[in-house]
């Protein structure tokens, strides 16, 4: 903050003429459209920038892989892509991926629905809030492996158990973010909703959820990532029967077979799905919601 240099003494007010324009026409919008140079247009595209980043990461990978020269531990990108291609062509990765995604989506959807129910209960009463925060604090830190015996007991081996652990990993993260989102909705907006007669479920669905949408989306993204993490880990523990395994099993299998490029091909698939979900699905949702509504920048 610059101190004002002009003091009362050293400047004089210049009295300028008044004027009035009576002839202002309509503003012509085409006059002010500017064309951007191609380079800038490209740079403005987030897809282009992300492609550049991915390329850079790929080059780093390749260089590090070649330099390390230890394909058992860290194969080069080209080796990995070779293995990826081979496993895509022979149909292994596609089938495994689909198997995994099925479980993943089911678990994720159930987790999100449960999270919504929990947070709805939590916002509608104080005891509900306490229940949610207690349960979250208790179960959120529990690893899938701790739930394994119970999952086996309740659901046996196979998909239902996997779904159960995924739900556990999604539920608390999403609920926590959702609840925080709800709690930070401004009082004015809450009050506005209530004067319309919104109450109970409608209040949550038609007011709190959209108002807390940026936080909810962040929770959904985290939940999605953790569903992946858990599933890959859980498939190892729960195993598979005759060929119905998913991508996690594929990774484990190839690790046992010491086929490191195939392991990395599996991981690359996980990453690609992550990128797809983030860059296409979530991006689409964001563009249609929080960005369009001006609730989130960027």
């Amino acid at each position, binding site marked *: 903050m610059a101190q004002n240099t002009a003091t009362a003494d050293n400047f004089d007010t210049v009295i300028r003429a008044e004027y009035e324009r009576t002839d202002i026409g309509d503003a012509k919008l085409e006059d002010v459209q500017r064309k951007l140079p191609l380079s800038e247009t490209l740079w403005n595209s987030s897809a282009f920038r992300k492609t550049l980043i991915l390329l850079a990461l790929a080059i780093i990978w390749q260089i590090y892989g070649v330099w390390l020269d*230890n394909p*058992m*531990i860290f194969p080069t990108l080209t080796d990995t892509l070779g293995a990826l291609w081979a496993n895509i062509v022979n149909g292994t990765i596609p089938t495994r991926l689909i198997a995994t995604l099925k479980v993943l989506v089911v678990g994720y959807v159930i987790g999100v629905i449960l999270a919504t129910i929990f947070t709805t209960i939590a916002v509608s009463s104080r005891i509900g809030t306490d229940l949610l925060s207690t349960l979250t604090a208790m179960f959120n830190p529990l690893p899938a492996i701790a739930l*394994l*015996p119970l999952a*086996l*007991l309740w659901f*046996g*081996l196979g998909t239902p158990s996997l779904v159960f652990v995924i739900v556990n990993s999604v539920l608390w993260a999403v609920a926590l973010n959702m609840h925080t989102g709800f709690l930070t909705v401004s009082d004015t907006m809450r009050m506005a909703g209530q004067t319309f007669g919104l109450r109970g479920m409608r209040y949550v669905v038609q007011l709190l959820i959209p108002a807390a949408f940026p936080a909810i989306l962040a929770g959904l993204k985290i939940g999605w990532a953790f569903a992946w993490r858990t599933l890959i880990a859980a498939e*190892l*523990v*729960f*195993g*598979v*029967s*005759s060929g119905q*395994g998913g991508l996690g*099993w594929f990774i*484990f*299998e190839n*690790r*046992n*077979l*010491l*086929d490191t490029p195939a392991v990395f091909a599996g991981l690359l698939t996980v990453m690609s799905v992550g990128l797809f979900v983030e860059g296409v699905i979530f991006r689409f949702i964001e563009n249609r919601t929080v960005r369009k509504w001006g609730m989130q920048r960027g």
Partner: protein
Amino acid sequence: ASAEDVTIGTGYGIGFLPLHILDAKDLIEARAKEAGLDLTPTYQRISGSAAMQDAVISGSVDLGAYGVPAILIGWDKTRGKIVGVAGVNASPLTLLTNREGVTDLKGFAETDRIAMPSLVSPQMYALQKESEAEFGEGQQDKLRQQVVALPHPEALNSITAGATEVNSYFAAPPFTQIALKNPKVHAVIDSNKIWGGQSTFLAFAAKTDFLEENPKVADVVIAALDDAAKLIRENPEEAADIYLAAEPSKLMTKEDLVAFLRENADDFGPEVHGVQAYADFMARHGGLSKAPANWQEVFTSAALKGREGS
């Protein structure tokens, strides 16, 4: 699960070859038909012994193959509600190292790290037994601080690449064989030497409830395991093919496998070895509340009673 479909827990490694053969050749179905049963086994791959044990206890798996010490602990803790059914594999477990000149446990320095899959694996007890033998009574845990739990692939990578402080590895086949292809790696000792003879590494376990409800299943499985062992002994090429179909390893060629199977044909079969030795050792050091009177107390099947075992 009803007698009609029985779930069998299996895993990765040459130790599980008999189970791969049972699956590929439908041996259990065949033996069941002879016994007048209509059995459909489902083979469920599970990654480790801890998970396998949970699966057995919770009834998700009817017959699970895992390490004998873990089975003994289960038998002990459940007061006999979990029992062994039959041996699966008795291949030797080998302590490998990439440190030159190490020929016995005394050669290990304090900074050396020995990898093995878990702390209740057969490898752990073999190491304890050998420690006791080399360092004297009460010294069984001398190297325990240096043991790290690491999955087989990482352990193998560690000693062959030599990039980490894990320079020793108590391996099981086929990882033993793969590791030994590396000139830097050599064997220190194996379990046959430690226990003074063959010892079962993998065995089937089940809940007594299941065995009582399905009295014929144990016999059927034992008979089928006999068939599998016979196939391995008589036709190692076919066995190798079955193995490679189940676990398409790039590091083990068919020739390697056939050679291995020829050399270790006796490792397979439902007979159990060294159970009593494990049990006595574990009971002595507090791992079991009491040792069984004899191995038949743990492996209860009538079909095994007449056979040799230890």
